[in-house]
């Protein structure tokens, strides 16, 4: 008896099924983001810019200061919890002698300075940006990481929090290779 009017008409279940598949798809997307987002960058070169230095707001940093050496460029914000997860890894990479620059996206310079004093600072240059540079780099959200060579050519672009695995598997070999080829040119 009960089963008779449990879902008598199967077509009425259709909205539910479509809705659930949409949710599953979106859930998948939400969790897929960090792992599938190693991508060829759509922007070829680091754009020209002149933006304030987070550590001394009176000074600016230009593209020329960044160039000349292979480097990681890490885009992050102080309000973004995922970005802070990456911090220990960046410190470790820094200790191994790799160069890291930061682009601080829409963040409070004072807070960040305080925070870096406690946590340690992996960044050679930390550029304060309210969206102009990040937009021209095609950044979708924080954190994202770029690998650029001495000429500012973008070699790798990774969306999401950098992990140890991604660093060792992809970034480190490319970093070594880029440094090597720069030395040969010199």
């Amino acid at each position: 008896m009960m089963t008779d009017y449990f879902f008598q008409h199967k077509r009425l279940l259709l909205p539910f099924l479509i809705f659930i598949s949409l949710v599953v798809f979106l859930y998948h997307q939400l969790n897929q983001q960090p792992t599938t987002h190693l991508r060829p960058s759509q922007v070829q070169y680091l754009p020209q810019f002149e933006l304030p230095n987070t550590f001394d707001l009176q000074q600016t940093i230009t593209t020329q200061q960044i160039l000349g050496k292979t480097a990681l460029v890490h885009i992050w914000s102080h309000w973004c919890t995922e970005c802070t997860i990456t911090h220990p890894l960046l410190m470790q990479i820094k200790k191994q002698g790799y160069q890291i620059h930061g682009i601080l996206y829409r963040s409070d310079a004072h807070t960040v300075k305080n925070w870096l004093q406690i946590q340690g600072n992996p960044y050679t240059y930390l550029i304060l940006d309210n969206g102009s540079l990040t937009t021209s780099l095609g950044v979708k959200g924080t954190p994202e990481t770029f690998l650029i060579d001495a000429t500012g050519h973008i070699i790798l672009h990774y969306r999401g929090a950098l992990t140890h695995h991604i660093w060792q598997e992809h970034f480190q070999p490319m970093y070594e290779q880029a440094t090597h080829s720069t030395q040969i040119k010199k």
Partner: protein
Amino acid sequence: MIPELGHLCLILALCFSALLLVIPPLGLTLKRQAWYQFAYPLTWGLFLLILTAFLLLTFSFITNDFSVAYVAAHSNTQLPIWYQVSAVWSAHEGSILMWILIQAGWMLAVLLNASSIPEHMLIRVLSILGFIIFGFLLFTLATSNPFLRYLPYPPQNGDDLIPLLQDFALIIHPPILYIGYVGFSVPFAFVTALLIAPEKLSNWSRWVRPWTLIAWAFLTLGIALGSWWAYYELGWGGWWFWDPVENASFMPWLLGVALLHALAIAEKRELFAQWTLFLGISTFALCLLGTFLVRSGLLSSVHTFANDSERGTYLLCFLSLVIGLAFLLYAYRATRLSIPKPFDWLSTEMMLLINNLLLGTACFIVLLGTLFPLIMSSLDWGDFSVGPPYFNTLFTPLTILTLWVLGTGLSMRWQKTALPALLSQWKSMIPIATLLAAIACILFLDHLTPTLFLALTGCSWVVAATIQDITYRFKKADKKGLYRIRLNYWGMHCAHLGLVMAICGAALTTALNQENEVKVLPGMITTLGDYQFRFDGVSRVKGPNYQSHQAKVTIFKNKHQVATLYPEKRQYLTQTDITTEIAIDPGFFRDLYIALGEPLEDHNWTIRFQVKPFIRWIWLGAILMALGALLCVWGRKRHPKIMQTKILSPQI
């Protein structure tokens, strides 16, 4: 202390909503009056607690309490006071708090205007809304609490509000949009309540329709305000961008229109019960989906909030719980509500059904376009962005088709339209439509494209149908007097004409827009259409929290001065980015629009001049639509006869 008090209010509100979710339904099952009537004080309590929390947050903003992280990130001591207030809802945490406040406001509104609704239905509605508000309160407290402190190093001054948001339209755009967005939770709650305890469909639609109309009216106004803001603030003269967030608000709008018309059928003819309920659930589902897409950062846009995957996961779980349960309930119970009744091909029912299908298709197109980049990247087919070409190509024919269906539908009668009667109506409609279309086409002959032609003829057809319908009504109402015509009748026509006006505006602006980007020296004259723009140089101006370069441009038409405009480039003191403040000379038939570009050498500047005909019609049309919807609500209130119907025993 103050922020902690606000925090406490939110926690108490969470407890209240949990009680509202559990006790009244239990009371209904156990038939204990005291239990289920507990819903009323709980609703009041919820509203007052959330209002207090909201006011306390506002207080923290006004008093520049930068130890509150949210205040420090979005305000500044130099910010004028009205922007300090509007900064409360300028970012994620505060806007979610406002969302909750509005939700509580809607609950209270339902409670206070429920005289004709049976008590068990009212209690269920409140309880379901209590569930939704519970979800959002939990969301706020768990992932986006605006009262969190910035200790032990509170900054001396805040980060300032993003300059783009320091604007009048942005003070009122979010509240109005949210009233609409959140308002669709009320029809949703009514749908769910109906599925739990069946009622007579026509009575039920009578209770839901005013709420749907109000929500839709506010959504319309909110979208129009957003479009107006984008037009004058973003600096390139567009009024619709097909940005994911715009789409997120446009989808519930489209389905909202469908729902309004479906409810009309349900009230008059008790037809399409399943379809109406489906629309009721889907409309709110799209509101929640939009919130999820924007707040989770899955799609990026002008509106991007601070992203956090935790928030996305929470919202998605909440969304699937609320909507999933509703759809499951729908699958289980909606069968018992359908009562098939015959109607003819030539009838209002059929036309409204076609209208619903068109709107449904339109909504699907927008949804597909919005999610397409996600689908493509998940299949590893590369990065795709779906832009205006996709939407415009698919949307234009649908819009034109809708106009024709609308005009035809207005000339139909319920149930069955006799063919001779219809033809005699058309006989008087066709000359009017032809005349109107001919005038319009001759006026814009130089720029006439097939699309514009079809849009203009479609609009003429609707106007002709409206005129025909009104004269018919006048003839019929002759003896009894015109004042007997109900206000909601005028509301309907007002909304339809608003749509025509908006579509006309959109079509004409697109077709007749003229623009020119030039390099100018002081004294130079640029001619664009009938207008001459004279650039008179640039001076430096100081504002309260910014410095700017202000250009002076004098505009002439046939050697008569029309206007003097002052476009600016602003540099805000606490932020590094520069904003373009465009200058507009507005008019009913055209806008003159100037955006100052970049400084070049030797006092040269780049500058963009635009003449945008009929652009105001888009927003005026939206205002008419909203006004029409509100007239319908008011008409119902003034004629309580419509509200009073015998409450029949539920048909099961």
